[in-house]
Every structure is written in structure tokens, then in C-alpha cells.
């Protein structure tokens, strides 16, 4: 197991993060946006635990990733609630229709 070098983990995390970021920027479906956010958060989690493999004596990375998982759960709950409320209001889940504050 220890044979896998850290570069692979980091590259995978970077790929996941980029997919999440590009998805967030380009898609218009709010549910997809939420999923993109989850993807980016998990990419970060992966980075953290990967570094923790290198620095075995230090558990900061694992602890941090637990925090992020907890926050991601909360964020998903709130985010879904907002999406639901928005859908009830507009009968749509498209992000470019959420511009009430602008006008």
C-alpha cells in the first residue's frame, strides 16, 4: 500500500478539483453545482489525507478532513433547502434565474 507515491494522490485530487471547479463555472443546474462543490471539497480532503500519509506522526490532516466532511454535510443540507425553496418560487433549478437581488 505504501508503494503508491504521493504524486498520484495529488494529481488525482487536482483532477477532481478541476472537474469540480469547471463544473461549477459552466453548468447552470443548481443541483449539479452542489455536486461540483462536493467534488471540490472531497478533492481537498484527499489532499489532506494524502499528506497525512507522508507525515505519519501528525494527524492534523485527518482531523481537518473530518471537519470538512462535517461542514460539507451541513452545506449540502442548507444548499438543498435553498434549492428547494428556489424551486418552489420559480419552478426552476437554473442558477441564471436566481438574480432577484440584482433587479
Amino acid at each position, binding site marked *: 500500500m505504501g508503494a503508491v507515491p504521493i504524486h498520484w494522490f495529488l494529481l488525482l485530487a487536482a483532477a477532481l478539483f478541476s472537474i469540480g471547479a469547471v463544473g461549477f463555472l459552466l453548468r447552470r443546474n443548481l443541483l449539479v453545482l452542489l455536486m461540483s462543490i462536493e467534488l471540490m471539497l472531497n478533492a481537498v480532503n484527499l489532499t489532506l489525507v494524502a499528506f497525512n500519509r507522508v507525515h505519519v506522526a501528525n494527524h492534523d490532516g485527518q482531523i481537518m478532513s473530518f471537519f470538512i466532511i462535517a461542514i460539507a454535510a451541513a452545506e449540502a443540507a442548507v444548499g438543498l433547502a435553498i434549492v428547494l425553496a428556489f424551486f418552489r418560487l420559480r419552478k426552476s433549478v437554473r442558477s441564471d434565474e436566481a438574480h432577484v*437581488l440584482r433587479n
Partner: protein
Amino acid sequence: MLSQLTSQFPANDFTLLAAVLLLPLIGAFVCGIFGKRLGKEGVRLMALSAVFGSFIASVVTFIMVAAAPHTATKAARLSWKAWHWFDVTGRGRSVVPIDVSFSVDALSATMMLIVTGVGFLIHLYSTGYMAKDEGFYRFFAYLNLFIFSMLVLILGDNLLVLFVGWEGVGLCSYLLIGFWFDDEKKAAAGKKAFIANRIGDFGLLVAMAMLVYYAGTLSWDGLEAAQSAMAEQRTVWSASYLREFPDWLVWLRDLVTPEQPVRMMVATMVALALFIGCIGKSAQIPLFVWLPDAMAGPTPVSALIHAATMVTAGIYLVCRTSFIFALSPLAMAVVAGTGALTALFAASIAFAQTDLKKVLAYSTVSQLGFMFIGVGVGAFAAGFFHVITHAFFKGCLFLCAGSVIHAMHARVHDETASQDMRNMGGLRKYMPITHMTFLVSCLAIAGFPLTSGFWSKDELLFKAFTNTIVPLNPNIITPPLWYGQMIYAIGIVAAVGTAFYMFRAYFMTFHGDFRGWSIVAGFKPPAHDDHHDDDHADHDEPLEGPVPHESPRSMTVPLIILAFFAAIGGFVYAEPLHQVWPLEMFVSLEHFWSPVFATASKFVTTRPGSEAMMWPLLGVGAGVSLFGIGAAYWVYIVQKGEPAKAFVARAGGLHRLVLDKWRIDELYDATILGLIDAMGDIAAQCDRWIVDGIIAKLTSGVVKVTGHALRLLHTGRVQVYAASMVVGTAVIGWYVFTPHAEATIDARRVRPQGQVRFEAAAGHGYRYRWHIDGETVPDIFSGRRNFSMQLERCEQKTAVLTIKNAFDREAVTTYTQCRESKPGCCKPTDTPAPKKEALLGRVDGGVR
């Protein structure tokens, strides 16, 4: 007994004054804070006992001052320094200490007796007069506070402590005039008094500043000793003051520049500035307008503050600083002249007034004028004696007026109607004590022979006739010789007027038939033109209602005591009598006060032959008063007011003018107040068009335009914000990823010593390597950022900075420096450094 007291209270630490001062203050505090809970009985007990205790302490003080050792020129002074207040910087950076200290001498001891004694009687009277008032406790708190402030004014050992008292009495006056503040007119009268006094206080402040500068002290002893500084001539206006004029205003400068520098004696400037303060406080021309309006306050207040004590503070101040005034014949002439004009002018207004309190108010202004005649001609003792007799008879007159108004209130609850003499008449039947005391005081103020007013008024008019002020040297401006006689003549005319209008008031109020039967609530006085119609109500049927009645004992006892002193009080001074019968045991007040005025008296002489003038002028004085009284009797009793009506019919315009107080208030409204209103309007327009119009609009405009520009960036689409976040993160990441080799150069010492210093800019994870171009390159990167390079004359070297960042990326910058000891000895190089680099520059390095 006395020796025990003297050892208890030594002359230089006379703590008895603390008792005199603090008792009324405690009274004011208790009545003001707890008065509502204490109830009327408690407040009465507290206020009366505080003032009475203060009076007892004053009596003891008076006896001790009289017994204290003094000489003919040096007055006995008992002083008490409470604490050191602060220091001010005087001329030449000298330190002038200002203490909170109090002292008492013959003059202030006498005044103190008057303030606490008459003050107590008026407090006693007020317990009856104000018995039904809602603000009973508030009234006595103010009244006690007034007594305290007045005592501070009298006992202050320097001008600043006096000023504290001066402002204190002004405040109490304001509070008490506007005591019934829910009446707009009364509140306005309070404000008027306060503002008129502020104008005077300005003069007093200026005087204080000049004294600190020229004399370097404010204490009475110090000022008296600083005579040489007072007598200096100072340039007050010369061409050299106007050097800084812009060219286009030169014509103005030439217009106002004097040929010779204008020089003035310090004493004249100080005395005139002090006198401005006195004009305000003692209601002289041109600031007298506030005093008649001040009658809006409760009548005991008019008696205590606006007749007996506070308004005489101006005369007290002139007496206190007599050594300054006497130095300047010009200032003395101004004082006497103002006094004489005011005496005559106010008397003329009193002729036509129908409001009893207004007559007394103008009479007070007029009597204050008499006092200023006295002190202005150098008869300080006589002038001040008039303060004392005036406190008795005018206090009594006002209290009688209050008693009459009290009685009239039984029939009518209208303020104006109950004070109008046209509604009175025949009151002697209903209120015998008030009638008798009013008559006695009227005789005193009219100067009926042997009453107190006779002695004081004649003494000061006699002195006006005979005294001249001797200038210190012939250069000093002095008034002409006939000036004194002119003052005397004006004074005599005013004295006739006084006797006439006072007895007019007396006859209208107490004689004839009672005209008040017809007045009921809502009574409106008839129009001005027929106001002399004395008996217009005579034939009306009496209406049902209560009858005027004598006042309760708490009000009549003070009347009797004051009338007693008004009748016989003059004998303690009565200079002519003392010359006839020089009684050992009965020392004249003038003799008692003479050490206080010793310094000033050196400048006062009497013209030759004045001794012989004493008895004839005494006769003139007696004749004047008898003539005035007789004329009033003839007009208002024998002829039943017919001549007055005939006069009004013939000269209606003049009568209306006098009735409207010569329309002085209207004059001030049109001129000074108009000017101030106009300035206010201009300021309001400036506010509207410049502040609100330009400045405010400009600011809001800038904000608006910026807001419009920034709003364009906010699309409201969440992905645009996310994109800008990504771009920002990328830019910051790139900046962190690339290394930046930058250094500051300190080349200040390159020319003298050939040393150049560098300091590389810090960055995250940076390591540095410095070397000189052409030398061997050390292969070590370290955290050391500083580097220095030594140059020979005309030598040129290049320093190379290499840095490595956390990602092991390198950047290099070179700095070329030359030591140019001779001009042109530095060759231009192929890589010329920009000029700014030579001193303190930065060059960004590229990535190798």
C-alpha cells in the same frame, strides 16, 4: 469675648467666612434636592435658618472688622484662602497665581450685613408671599443660591472670585425672573436680562485680561500696590499696527491711521472696561433695558435682587477698585456722566408708567444712576451709602408693592390688572401697615429731610458740586471744571422728578377711592391715551367679591423693620450732623470706610470754599424734595389729576413716547437686533446654498457616480462571482510562485565614504545570495538580506542579488553604482541605471 474670637479666627486665616458663605449654599442644596419631600414647612425652616445663620456670622464678622487694628490709610482686612485655583501666564512669562480666597474689610462687611440682613427679611416675607405657589421649594433654593453667589461676589479677594459671584448672581437673577417659566413673556424677560448682562461681562473679562497683563495680579491688595503699572501710558492705536494690509485696501488704512500714535493710560482702559461690566449689571444707559422687564419675576425677587443687592454690584465693583478709577479723571467723568444721564432719563420714564412695579423699576434705574454720580465724582463713601439706604427704602417699597399686589389678587387674578395703579386707590383704609411703611419709604426716596435718603442723596450731590479729580500728571485728560456742576444740576432735576413720581405712585395707590370694584377676571386695561383717567370707575356700581385685605404678619414684619431703617438709617452717616455734634461713641460710616478709599481719596480734592456750601446745598436738597412732593400733592390730590390729564391732552405724542419708554427697546430692535438678525439670515442662506447646496450635493454626487460604476460589476449571477474568485486566486498564486528580486539602495554615503548599502525585500520562503559582479560567486543562499559595497574614488561596481523562493525558483537583479567624486569621471556603462536608482530605487528582477 472678642479676644477669644480673634484667637479663634486670626486675620490671615479667617475661617468664619466659610460659615457665612456655606450656610446659604447648604440651604440651596437641601431646598433644591430634597425640597419636594421636605414640604413647605421644612423648606421654610431650612431656607430661613440658613440665611439667618449667615446673618449672625456676618454680624460677628462686622464687629471683628470694626475692632481689628487699622490705620487711616491701611484698612483692616480679614482674609481666608480656601485653596489655590490655578496659575495664568502674565507679561514676560511671569506666573500669576489665582487663588480661591475671600477677605472682608469695612466696605464688604457693611455690604455683607445688608445682603444677609435684608436678604433674611425678604426670605421671611417670601414665605408669606409665595405660600400658595407650586414651586415653593424651587424658589427658596434659588433665593439661597442667590445669597451665596452675592456673598462670593462681595467677599472675593480677587477679581476672578468676584467674577464667579457676579456670574452666579446673574444666573440666579435669570432663574428667578423666569421663575414662572410657562409664561412666554417672563421667560423672555429672563433671557433678556441674561443677554444684556453678558454684554457687560465681556467688558469685565477684558478688564481682567488687561490687569493680568499689566499689573500681574488680580487680588485687591496687589492691584492697589500696582499703581505705577496702572499709571503707565500705553500706545493703543498706531500706524505700525496696520503694516500687513493688502495693497487694494491701502485707502482704508490711510483713512484710519492716526497722525500720532494714540496713547492711553492703563488705568483708563481698565476702568472703562470694568465700567462696561457695571453698566450691564447695574442697568445704566445703554444696557438698562433689562431691569424693567425683570419685574416679571416674583415681587420679593424684584426687591432683593433687582433693587437691594445684585444691581448695586456695579457700584460695589467701582468702590472696590476705586484706586484704579481715581487714577483716571476721564473714566471718572464717564462714570458720573453715565450715572447722571441715567438718573434723569429713567426718572422721566417713571412719570408716565401706570404699572406700580414698573414705576419702582425705573426708579431703581434712576437711583442707581445717583449712586454712579457719587462714585464718579470721587465720593465713594457717599455713593456706597446710597446703596445701603436704597437697599432699605427700595426693598421696602417693593415689598409694599408686593403686599398691594397680594391684596389686589383677592379681587382679580390678572397679573397686569392687579399691578395697575389705575385700579387701586384708597388702599390705606384696607392695609394700614403697608400704607404707613410705603409712605415712610417714599419720603426716604424723595429725600424728605432727616430720612435716610435725604442724607445719602444730598451728600453725593453736594460732593458732585464740590469735588474734582486731580490728575497724576498734567498730560492726563481731565474734564472741564464746570463738569461737576453740570452733574449736580442734572442730579437736582432728577431728584425733583423722583419726589414727584414716587408721590404720584403713592397718591394713586393709597389715596382717593378704591377703583378696583369694577375689575373682574379678564379685565382689559383701557388704551394708552386715556390712562390718566383716574376716576373713570368711580361711579360704577361695586361688584360682588372679596375686599382688599392686609397681608399676613410674615409679610408685614419685614416691612416695618425695613421702613424703620429707611427712616432713621441715615443718621449713621449724616455727615453734616456729625460735624455739628461730633459724638465719640457714634462713629460715622464714612470714617469707618475711609481707610478702604484712602488710596483713591488722594486724587480727590474739594474746591475752595466748599465747606461754606454745605448748609446752603443741604437746604437746596430739602427744598427739592418738598417741591416734588408738594407738586405731586397738588396735581393728584388737590386737582384730582386734572393737570396731568390736561398735559396728556396737549402733548399726547410726547406722552405716548414716554409711556413707551422713549421706544428704546424698539430702537435696539431696529438697529442691533436687526443687524444680528440680518447676519443670521446671511448665515442661513450660506447654509442653504453653499453647505447644503454645493458641499453636500458634491459629496453625494461622487458617491452616486461611483455606486453606478460599481453596480455594473454586480451581475447577480453566482457563477460570475465564482469565476472572478478563480481568477483572483490564480493571480495571487502566480505572484507567490514567481520569485521577485528587489532591493532598496541606501547611497547617501557613496560620495563621502564610498559605501553603498542594499537591503533585499523580504518574501515567503526566500533565501538570498549577494555578490559583486566579476568576483567569485559563493554557492550559499542564506537568510541575510543586507549587503554593503565599498567603492574607491571614481570606481564603478555592480552588485548582484540572487534569490531563491520556496519552489526553488531563482531570480537575479543587478545594481550598478559609481562614486562620482569629480564631475564626469563616471563613464556611461552599457547597462545604464535609471537616475532614481542612484538614490533610493527598486529594480524588479527577471527570472533567470
